[in-house]
């Protein structure tokens, strides 16, 4: 209840100060949201894609060394249901954790770039998202393009400054459309499909 209230408050603040328009909600029972990552604000904005009653049914992924301790870690774990992942361990182990959560029926918010990186520059997507799509072929993956968040709160900054933030939800990608290919090939194709859909939105 407190969590829902805090989320509602956060949504109101984001609308007022960052001018994020109310997006159409994603209705699928279970979904994966894949977005480009520039700022800590991103996660708050992406949560708006889901109804406020669903905030307990979504998991996010966070690096243990960064979000493991302190207030930052507390907020990430309590408000955004972060699953902590060690950056050091093998990709397979990380993947097991994700798989576990998806099997329990949770939705997921994933940043395939893996890190915020340089502000305003989109890094290459990691192939993990394609792996997930193949293992859960019927869960829709919504590519989401976020713009402007890097101006509000770039890496290294502490005080957010209001700027208009744009969010565009693109058509979902399904793993089932790529099952005909061999595993490695399919994984690569899904990843590059999601990446190119997001990249096509970048305005120069």
């Amino acid at each position, binding site marked *: 209840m407190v969590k829902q209230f805090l989320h509602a408050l956060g949504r109101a603040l984001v609308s007022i100060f960052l*001018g994020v*328009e109310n997006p159409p909600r994603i209705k699928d029972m279970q979904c994966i949201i894949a977005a480009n990552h520039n700022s800590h604000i991103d996660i708050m904005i992406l949560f708006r894609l889901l109804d406020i009653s669903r905030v307990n049914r979504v998991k996010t992924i966070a690096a243990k060394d960064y979000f493991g301790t302190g207030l930052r870690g507390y907020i990430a774990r309590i408000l955004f249901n972060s699953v902590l992942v060690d950056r050091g361990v093998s990709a397979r182990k990380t993947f097991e954790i994700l798989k576990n959560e998806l099997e329990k029926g949770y939705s997921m918010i994933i940043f395939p770039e893996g890190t915020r990186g340089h*502000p*305003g520059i989109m890094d290459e997507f990691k192939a993990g998202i394609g792996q997930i799509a193949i293992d859960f072929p019927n869960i829709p993956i919504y590519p989401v393009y976020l713009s402007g968040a890097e*101006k509000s709160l*770039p890496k290294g900054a502490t*005080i957010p*400054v*209001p*700027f208009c933030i744009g969010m565009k939800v693109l058509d979902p990608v399904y793993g089932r459309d790529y099952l005909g290919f061999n595993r490695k090939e399919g994984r690569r194709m899904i990843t590059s499909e999601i990446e190119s859909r997001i990249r096509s939105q970048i305005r120069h």
Partner: protein
Amino acid sequence: MSFYRNVFLATIISASFYLLLKRDDTAMLYVMTAIVGLLIVFSVVWRLLESKKFPLADEIKKRTITWWWMVAVFMLALAFNRIVSFVFLGFLCFAALREYFSLLPMSEISESKTLSFRDRPSILVSYISVPLMIFLAYIKWYELFVITIPVYIFLLVPILFVLQNRTEGSIKSLGIITIGLMFFAHNFGHCLFMINIGPILLMYCFVLTEVRDLLSYWVGKFLASLTENRSGGFMKNLLDYRVAGDISPKKTWATGIVSAVIVALLSLAFVPLMPQFPNGRLTYGYSLILGFLIGVLGLFGDLVFSMVKRDLKTKDSGTILPGHGGIIDRVDSLVFTIPVTFHLIYWMYF
């Protein structure tokens, strides 16, 4: 969904009418009734046009619906009480300023036409100046209100730059930030002090400016239809004389002046509604001058922001108002008309 939306809209509008009635503000009631009447006419018109499959029907529909919402929110904010009016108009200034800063891309390297990530503190200061302006207008400290931004904030921004130890790209960033401050926090911010004089003065300025925007479109069409069949000659050349052909090929001097004259005549309707100022009432002659100035300045406000948008290669400044574009697309002329109207009134009657 659309039914509930209409009910909600009707509730807001009737609530504001009720509040105005309770305050016994006859002048505002007249203006609001006229605006709502005009909107009802437009709503009937687009339904008629839609049934006849007129090509512009969809555009008019979208714009009219957005107008309904803007008018409803604006009415309620002005009718509710003083604090709500101040916060609402202040938020409008903030939103316009935010949209302006968001138009420009931001990068780490200092290129022309981009902001730098090191500009963020100064931009934050620009935003903070808006609540400061609200406060100063609220306590009616006129002398400080008119100099806060051109003197204090204007000097604070370069001081911040120096404290950041910046060299490269500083003059460009200073220019971008301070012009945003002047346009949207100072000039547009004058609407805050207008509430102190009376909401009717605000309506005088807002209505005439927005009517000019609408009018110039139809006047332009009408004048173009006059010369359509002529192949040349003095009349056609006169009507085709453009203000700035590269910025906007459609805006001609003839359209601008004819619209300004119509706006000046329309402004006369407001004169009997104006309150008693310390130095007497607004005269018909002075209102004609003000109305004409609003017409001309509105045209230039429009063109200035077209110029900025053309430079940045965007068509609309945002997507927040369906059919209109962004907030700047709507308030661009107001940035020019509000401060001039305010100061001319203040100079003559206070």
